[in-house]
């Protein structure tokens, strides 16, 4: 996160603070993913198509199996791959904390609300945790932790343009892939534009605005952003036409897979098949 952004985030609380916090979080994650994708680790050397297929296979397997142990095993594979790819454990723990906070709030009541045999009574409160409640809550948390780790490992070891190219290998329409790629680029342009607008406005504020004016400021910012979006789409369209674009999308062919890629996808396929057909 840039110095200016840090300064903005810590200067004022409320709408601006929270919005800037969200934006900085997105920028942070993206920068961090791009940096780790450029490092030399196990998965960084694997073809993006293999990583995408492997992550999808493992996520599907973790979602399909009803066994705690197998979900935990897939989670351990994900952590192992992350460490072999030189991803920082700190990043993973930040991810897990967020996941546990969000999904924990959802899973916690299931301990008491799911009908089943009493398993443990909470002292003082007297609430009863049921065996089925405990199993369903822990299975949900294990699944969410495992799948979010796999998603994070995929994005953190694959440059975004390689990930987009990989999507084409799975018969995703070219137009959809180009659309996602263009959108990804413009997201960062709009983030910068939003930061400029909010910073410009904040630098002119001497005190805290009343709630109604803060709401007005928020919708005006969104409105300006929308007007800019339409202007920009017109400019981009003209620029594309100037370069010969006539509504048809063409992309370069993919390079063939290497032996390491075949080895990796074969190993993951065998692992997932073994889990599902055990």
């Amino acid at each position, binding site marked *: 996160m840039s110095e200016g952004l840090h300064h903005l985030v810590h200067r004022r609380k*409320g*709408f601006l603070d*929270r*919005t800037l916090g969200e*934006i900085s979080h*997105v920028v942070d994650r*993206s920068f961090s993913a791009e940096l780790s994708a450029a490092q030399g680790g196990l998965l960084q050397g694997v073809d993006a198509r293999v990583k995408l297929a492997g992550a*999808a296979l493992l*996520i*599907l397997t973790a*979602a399909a199996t009803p066994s705690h142990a197998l979900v935990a095993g897939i989670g351990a594979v994900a952590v192992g791959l992350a460490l072999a790819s030189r991803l920082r454990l700190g990043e993973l723990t930040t*991810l897990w904390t967020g996941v546990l906070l*969000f999904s924990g709030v*959802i*899973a916690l*009541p*299931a301990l008491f*609300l*799911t*009908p*089943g045999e009493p398993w443990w009574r909470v002292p003082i409160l007297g609430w009863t945790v049921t065996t089925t*409640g405990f*199993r*369903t*809550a822990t299975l*949900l948390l294990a*699944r*969410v932790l495992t*799948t*979010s780790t796999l*998603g994070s490992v995929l*994005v953190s070891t694959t440059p*975004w343009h390689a*990930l987009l190219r990989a999507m084409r290998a799975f018969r995703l*329409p070219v*137009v959809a892939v180009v*659309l*996602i790629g*263009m*959108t990804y680029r*413009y*997201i960062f342009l709009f983030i910068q534009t939003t930061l400029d607008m909010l910073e410009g406005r904040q630098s002119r504020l001497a005190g805290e605005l009343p*709630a109604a004016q*803060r*709401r007005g400021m*928020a919708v*005006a910012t*969104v*409105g300006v952003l*929308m*007007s800019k*979006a*339409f202007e920009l*789409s*017109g400019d981009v*369209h003209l620029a*594309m036409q100037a370069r010969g674009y*006539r*509504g048809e*999308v063409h992309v370069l062919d993919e390079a063939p897979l290497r032996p390491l890629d075949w080895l990796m996808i074969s190993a993951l396929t065998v692992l997932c098949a073994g889990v599902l057909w055990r």
Partner: protein
Amino acid sequence: MHIPDGYLSPSTCAVAYASAAPFWYVAMRKVKRRLHSRFLPLIAVFSAFSFVIMMFNLPLPGGTTGHATGVGLAAVVLGPWAGMLAISVALVIQAVFFGDGGITAIGANCFNIAIVGSLVASLVYRLVAGTSPTGSSRRLLGAGLAGYAGINAAALLTAIEFGLQPLLFHDATGTPLYAPYALGIAVPAMMIGHLTFAGFAEFFVSAGVASYLQRTDPGLLAREAPGAERGKPDSLKKLWAALAILMLLTPLGLLAVGTAWGEWAPEDFSKADTRREIAAVTHGQAPAAAPAGLARLSTVWTAPIPDYAPPILKNAAFGYVLSAMAGTGLIILVTLMLSALPSRTRDV
């Protein structure tokens, strides 16, 4: 509301992808035909815009803040088809690149928020805004309600998907394998937050930005308001035709046997055949007589046309059609009376 991986079973996710696919296909064809070479830049830029405004924390009355999805705005400015594509792309990027929403749940999230949300928002916007001028306060109300209805329709669908999981997917001991709460918990838990905070956030963003555009860039609001210039939208004829067909089809209800669940009249509890029906659907727990409260309250109001069968008619099918016409006429009358209320028009 973005469903992460692990909350829905793989088969639910597959059904969601299959449900979303035809909408994506039709939307892609419709929007490409309309925009041709402008399709890519417009949808890409608007998707990026949608992504960024999902990060905005809007101050709400009561001192809290809420997020908006932009589903109402997309429907108002782009229309339902382009809107559902733009929001879908934003959701895919959130899931794949930023881990917000699951990869297996992309189909479900897109179906709930981008597709159903956009269609409901667009329908509400067209119904409320009608052919009013782009600068009218009725369009603001339409935009706000579009956002509110769109996000709540998406939330309801999400809650239903969650609520179906423990019913459909559990192991031999009854342990739910995915989202653990049944419909009775999932629906209120999801809807309370969306009918209040999230719904209001969407309402304020949609109406607020529409108001801002009325003052600064009214052309953007005119894109999806064809009736505002000419006075009557083309689609109204189709709506009338569809309404007429639906009215003619109302006697189809006569084909159904028995009484609808929970619509029993006090006298049904004393009829042998209806008692058998009630017992069959309540695990044999049909009360011996009509509950006292039901018996007392059922006499408070007597409908002029009970059971859609006007007493003057002997033909039940014709009675249904006549009831449909009378009901529709009453609704149109009330709507016209409300429309006749003075509306404040802004100078644009």
